[in-house]
């Protein structure tokens, strides 16, 4: 590790110039390279117009009934004697949203987004296939083909292939491994979660980089992965220089999600090619003592979402953020102050491209006869309905493209949540 900082930076500058030339050649005319932060400052319309989609997966099945609380349903309080969120205005009560639904009080940070119409929910969303296994249900949500088990790619990867190819678009993954939702033919850029992504790694060093680039110069799977890794690395190094990030990292957040959200926002604003991003937060499988878990997790989730929307400010009007989970949880609490695997759940929508300040979706009440298998919130909206509408109206996919992302799905078009 003897090569000094100066030569390292020189090397990066050299690399950057090379990259500029390459990008210029490749996109003839559009000479703005990946990683330049100045789209907005330069007023390049074509860039700011590009629509963005961020998907955040809450793994473990978050209890949507305690997020978007139906506080006017007596059955809700009957079913959850110890874990229900109290009525609005009571101690630790729900924050009333529309007179019927309320928000969990630990998500108070999101209220300004609701007030400014940048936050909405769709209640009782889910898969058409009842599936109580976390892993199978997550697979269905990620493959976009519920009921079909051998789909080889994820719907976000198929979506990437359908987006305009006039400039190479990119999807960004926060994580060391590629989740199913992003698996497929199209290359994915990724950043390490919970870490300063700009911290140096051995293959940043010129000699090491050169040696491995020679070794992985082919067209085989490993070579392609290595090359894509280096490309993504160049973007990260140009957009997230340590100087830039140091301000927001002075007070390092206790929660990695908040830091990751800041990095995702920076990269999406700085790099107009990054139209899609995927993040995930785990820990929602609350079979036991649900309330303390929510009290601990929800504030940092809210902080992360606020950080993300604030960071995306310059392009928020062109952005939709979807927060989803594999299924909801039982309407009744179990014997351990928790909830078990259920069915319908709330989907969250954020961003300037949605008509916020509303809770969408058909609500059938919580009376026993309306429940799925006498225990769960039924699904009244297919998750593909919400996503298809975003793809069709926000990302301008035509019917043919749409049918390749969600094969076999027919839009019901009974929702209208996009601005």
């Amino acid at each position, binding site marked *: 590790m003897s090569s000094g900082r100066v030569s390292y930076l020189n090397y990066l500058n050299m690399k950057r110039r090379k990259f500029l030339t390459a990008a210029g050649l490749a996109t003839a005319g559009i000479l703005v390279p990946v990683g330049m932060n100045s789209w907005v400052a330069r007023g390049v319309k074509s860039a700011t117009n590009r629509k963005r989609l961020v998907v955040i997966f809450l793994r473990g099945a978050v209890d949507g009934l305690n997020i978007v609380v139906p506080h006017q349903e007596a059955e809700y309080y009957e079913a959850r004697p110890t874990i229900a969120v109290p009525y609005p205005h009571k101690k630790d009560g729900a924050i009333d949203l529309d007179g019927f639904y309320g928000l969990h009080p630990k998500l108070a940070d999101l209220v300004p987004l609701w007030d400014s119409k940048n936050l909405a929910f769709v209640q009782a969303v889910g898969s058409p296939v009842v599936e109580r296994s976390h892993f199978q249900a997550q697979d269905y949500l990620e493959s976009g083909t519920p009921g079909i088990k051998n789909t080889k790619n994820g719907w976000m990867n198929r979506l990437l292939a359908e987006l305009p190819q006039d400039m190479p678009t990119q999807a960004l993954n926060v994580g060391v*491994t590629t989740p199913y939702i992003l698996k497929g033919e199209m290359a*994915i850029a990724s950043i390490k979660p919970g870490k300063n992504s700009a911290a140096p790694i051995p293959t940043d060093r010129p000699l*090491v980089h050169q040696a491995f680039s020679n*070794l992985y110069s082919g067209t085989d799977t490993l070579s392609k992965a*290595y090359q894509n890794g280096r490309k993504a690395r160049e973007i990260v190094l140009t957009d997230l220089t340590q100087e830039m990030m140091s301000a927001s990292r002075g007070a390092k957040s206790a929660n990695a999600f908040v830091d990751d959200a800041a990095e995702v926002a920076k990269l999406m604003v700085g790099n107009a090619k990054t139209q899609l991003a995927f993040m995930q937060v785990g820990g929602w499988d609350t079979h036991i003592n649900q309330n303390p878990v929510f009290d601990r997790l929800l504030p940092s989730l809210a902080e992360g979402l606020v950080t993300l929307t604030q960071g995306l400010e310059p392009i928020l009007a062109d952005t939709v953020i979807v927060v989803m989970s594999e299924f909801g949880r039982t309407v009744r609490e179990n014997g351990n102050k928790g909830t078990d695997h259920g069915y319908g759940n709330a989907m969250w929508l954020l961003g300037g491209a949605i008509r916020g300040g509303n809770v969408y979706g058909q609500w059938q009440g919580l009376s026993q006869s309306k429940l799925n298998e006498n225990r769960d919130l039924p699904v009244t909206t297919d998750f593909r309905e919400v996503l298809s509408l975003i793809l069709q109206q926000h990302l301008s996919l035509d019917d043919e493209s749409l049918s390749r992302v969600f094969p076999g799905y027919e839009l019901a078009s009974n929702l209208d949540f996009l601005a």
Partner: protein
Amino acid sequence: MRQKLQYWTGILLFSLILWLGLINRAEANSELSQAHQRHILERLSFGVTSEQMQQVKAEGIEAYIQSQLTPELVEEPPILNNYLAKLSLIHQKPTELQKKVNANRKKVRNSGLSIEQKQKIRQEIREMNTKARDEAINAHLARAIYSSRQLKEVMVDFWFNHFNIYADKGDIRLWLSDYEQKIRPHALGNFRDLLAVTARHPAMIIYLDNKKNTAPDSPVGIRGKLGLNENYARELMELHTMGVDGGYTQDDVIALARIFTGWGVDYEGKRGDKKGFFFYKNRHDRHDKTFLGHKIAANGIKEGEQALDILASHPATAHHISYKLAEYFVSDRPPSSLVDRLAQKFLDSDGNIKVVLDTLIHSAEFNDPQYYQQKFTTPYQYIVSLVRMAEIEQPNFKRIRGMLQQLSMPVYRCPLPTGYKNTQSAWLNPQAMLQRTGFATAIARGTLNPGYSIPYKQLQRNSGELSERTKQVIAKTPPKLRSALMMGSPEAMYR
């Protein structure tokens, strides 16, 4: 004359062809057998060392396979025994560790102490927890790196992952080493025994919440308004035995949860067998049950044993386990002919793992050259294989743990009950390639053992035949980077 010439030319040509053919075949044979032997060593161990190659050279590959299948006859190297002997907490009973931690917690609750005193005790608790976990992980790593019973350790790792638990939930850290030690004797033994030890182990009961699983109409259920918890029952069928498509229903999940009500933890080992498991009769569901079509008469703890018998001998279980073994040892997409044959062997042998593995290792599919060097290593396999390949005697275990953490595969810390996957699609991605090449470079520079320079010649011997491209690139690279390239090469990343 002319005819004679033709005759002789013909004979000469014929002999030449025959001779060339023989040479080619002989060469091909020896090459094939080198690659073949290497394939077997790579799949049955955590990475090839010179010692293994010498053993195969001396005794032949079949003798090696048989010795690996009979690990009790294989002696462990002193370096491993010495390393394990130096650890302290893994040699203590988990119930004793739990007693100490509980006593400390009691002290903290006692209001008589000053804040500083309480902080000191809290610190002690934390240190004990961390030490118990890190020692257990180090022992796991040391066995993978040093053990001569490689196949056994591969299988211990396989079964731990199959019956996964998560170190950071509750007090599981204190029980980690014990959990693995309970699995170890059965790693090449009988599947039913693995079910028995995992179902009763406090680590599993804590991890999948069965300690909370209570019949609502049992005395404890009524008093504490407690109810069923389906978590263990569901994963027992979905992940441990039948598989998600095994053909059970939600009613079976509930029935199985009722069967296992009362299977709980006795942390300090004060009751029953005094090892941490206790059957709480006053939490148990006292009604008859129907499980997978079997009538199970109310019979206390015996119902659970009966359910485990049903699960262990179920064809879906045989198929699920066989698929996972074939996926681990043969291919990410194992041929169904092999899976079916293994499943049959599993059923015929009442779940004898050694018999199933013997069949697998000698199957045409396992030995088919199309599968050589086709399994992408998991981060764990990759890092451990680099240490073995470089024959680093005293690696820094803390650094190894850090690398595995960064590669998203920390030992004992997969939070999901599925355990870690072992397929290429799970682990190969752009970020991973940057990290792996980075760690290869760091290890080649001695980050795991400052002062020891890894002999390039030895790396070369241990890494087997390289592709033309790797050879060429290495030849063109300055010598000080050659070890890094070798360890970060495609050949090192596949097994």
